[in-house]
């Protein structure tokens, strides 16, 4: 017969209580003294409850004074951040319903419960269903909307792929360089652009590409006609890509470099003894070790695929209408509508699509990763 004392009683979970209860009941069932009628079942139940309560006496002390104080301190620590999140992240969330309303500013009457003008107006504004979305798909606007969606997604994919390849390549090369001092020096230089704001980059683009810019001062003496690079549609994808690589590659490579330095050297030595060259070592040792980090960062990047680096897309082309087809992204589009005289519902509808699509995409990507390699999933 099972000894009751063998059941661990230092776990105070509810689950353990249940286990103890079942165990006790089984023991009682096995002993001959109990019959099989309903009253004996009731008796078994009673004994089970009593013995399980008796077996975990420390259950009551789960919330002793010390623990309450500790948890209260923890709650106080979390409080400032929690309030910030509430104000700046959670309060705007219900605002997505703006997309389904025609927002009209109404002054709340003096006896109204809600005195804030925005909330009052938000509640009082009439629901209009999908009317706001219709504006985006009007024959006159649908082309532009699709173009901006295309720009956003394609630029993001481009930056994801190129950024990933270059960051990993930079990390590997920096790691392999024989001269440590140079490796560190190079890395510091590549990290530097991360400190420079997009506005200053916009100045640089201007200094390089304007009619009086450096590019012209270099090519005109060679006999070419002067060009204004930033008025050329074809040039913009390259400008964005170059600017993006310039600013983020050094920063992006740090996490990969840290992963590579953490790989066990013996793996490489074994591979080298077996005759694997540098490339084979990279493909069969370095890359598999990098995959979890890559997957994680890419899941997060997929969630932002309908967003964009607002500062870059806003300041570099600076609203130039000539190149809008290739430079405007959804973020900038939404901001433009927000600051125009259009009803608030229109940009809200576009922003709603952005939020929902990003959220759904991140869930889907995570679900796929979870299916294939559960340990790499984000959640």
């Amino acid at each position: 017969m099972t000894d009751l004392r063998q059941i661990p009683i230092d776990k105070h979970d509810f689950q353990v209580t249940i286990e103890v209860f079942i165990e006790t009941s089984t023991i009682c069932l096995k002993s001959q003294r109990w019959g099989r009628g309903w009253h004996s079942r009731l008796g078994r139940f009673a004994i089970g409850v009593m013995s399980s309560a008796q077996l975990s006496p420390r259950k009551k002390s789960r919330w002793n004074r010390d623990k309450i104080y500790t948890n209260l301190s923890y709650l106080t620590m979390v409080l400032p951040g929690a309030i910030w999140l509430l104000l700046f992240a959670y309060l705007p969330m219900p605002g997505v319903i703006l997309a389904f309303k025609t927002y009209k500013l109404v002054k709340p009457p003096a006896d109204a419960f809600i005195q804030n003008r925005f909330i009052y107006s938000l509640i009082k504004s009439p629901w209009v269903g999908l009317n706001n979305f219709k504006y985006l798909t009007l024959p006159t606007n649908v082309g532009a909307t699709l173009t901006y969606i295309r720009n956003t997604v394609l630029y993001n994919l481009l930056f994801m792929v190129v950024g990933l390849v270059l960051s990993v390549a930079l990390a590997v090369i920096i790691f392999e360089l024989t001269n440590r001092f140079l490796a560190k020096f190079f890395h510091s230089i590549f990290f530097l652009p991360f400190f420079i704001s997009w506005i200053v980059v916009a100045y640089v683009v201007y200094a390089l590409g304007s009619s009086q810019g450096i590019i012209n001062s270099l090519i005109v003496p060679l006999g070419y006609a002067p060009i204004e690079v930033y008025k050329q549609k074809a040039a913009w994808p390259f400008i964005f890509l170059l600017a993006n690589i310039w600013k983020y590659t050094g920063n992006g490579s740090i996490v990969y470099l840290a992963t590579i330095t953490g790989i066990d050297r013996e793996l490489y030595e074994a591979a080298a003894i077996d005759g694997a060259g540098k490339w084979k070592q990279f493909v069969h040792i370095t890359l598999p070790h990098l995959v979890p980090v890559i997957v994680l960062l890419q899941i997060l990047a997929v969630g932002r695929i309908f967003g964009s680096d607002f500062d870059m897309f806003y300041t570099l082309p600076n609203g130039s209408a000539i190149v809008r087809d290739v430079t405007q992204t959804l973020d900038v589009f939404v901001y433009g509508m927000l600051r125009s005289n259009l009803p608030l519902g229109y940009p809200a509808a576009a922003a709603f699509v952005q939020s929902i699509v990003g959220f759904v995409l991140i869930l889907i990507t995570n679900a796929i990763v979870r299916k294939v390699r559960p340990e790499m999933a984000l959640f």
Partner: protein
Amino acid sequence: MEVIAKPDSKSLVQFFSRKEKQRDMLALSPGVNTFFTILLGILCVLTLIPIYVIIIASLTSESVLVADGYRLWPREFSARAYTFLFSQGSIVITAYKNTIIATVAGTILSVLMVGLYAYPLSRPNFKFRNFFTFYAFFTMLFGGGLVAYYMVTRQLLKIQNTLWALFLPSAFSPFWVIVMRTFYQSNVPNEIIESARMDGANEWRTLFQIVMPLAVPGLATVALFSAIGIWNNFFNCLLLVDDTKYYSLQFTIYTTLNNIRFLLENADKMQGIVNVSELPSQTFRMAMAVVTVGPIIFAYPFFQRYFIRGLTIGAIKG
């Protein structure tokens, strides 16, 4: 495959502190090594060119810049733009003041809030740990969108046209909370915290006297990144500030560039209305750009010895 590699800060610090890699069977062959050294050297020069361009333009003599356009090596140098910038230009000084206040306040606030929020999440005895982790994490996945954010900050929180607008919206970040949580978990052994508790320190004292000193690299990284973020922030000002009194530095130089571009592009239409030659000088603007970059670059070496460790550990889920 069982082994999941995680970014390892200690090995990275070792990697950077070692003077010379021992020559062994794993070393690159000298030829390949030279090739990559030269390649990275060239790329470094290319990386520095944009910075060089604005510095050299700001040091060019104005008349030469107007006559020749931008050059890699101008015919004539002049520091007049800088003397002009500091002799007058109250806009720049106000913007500087605003940005410095915002950066200092925002950095302190974000280190405190992130450091405080992340610590309980790293403690297994916090009962609401999962809830508050999710509470922060969820905001990384879903947001109300720009329009709702704009309305809430302007109509409900009413922080527009105040100095708060420049740093409060960037004073906290769920991403850095996750990073710091993992940093605490992996760099502050549970035994130390337990023994501090045993000696009678309460949670606050444990955090400030034991845990935070051990987590300085992580906190310094949060400080550095939020300082860069707020110093370079343009969006908060664009969205929430209309009053020139509260303009940030980035926004000030943005509006300057914007005005110039607009006038130059429409110079023919504007003939007679604005005299293009009377615009704030080109070198002056470049000097402004250089001056905005300056201070934040100086923060780099100061934080450098910490940030590699802080950045890598826990940038990944733990």
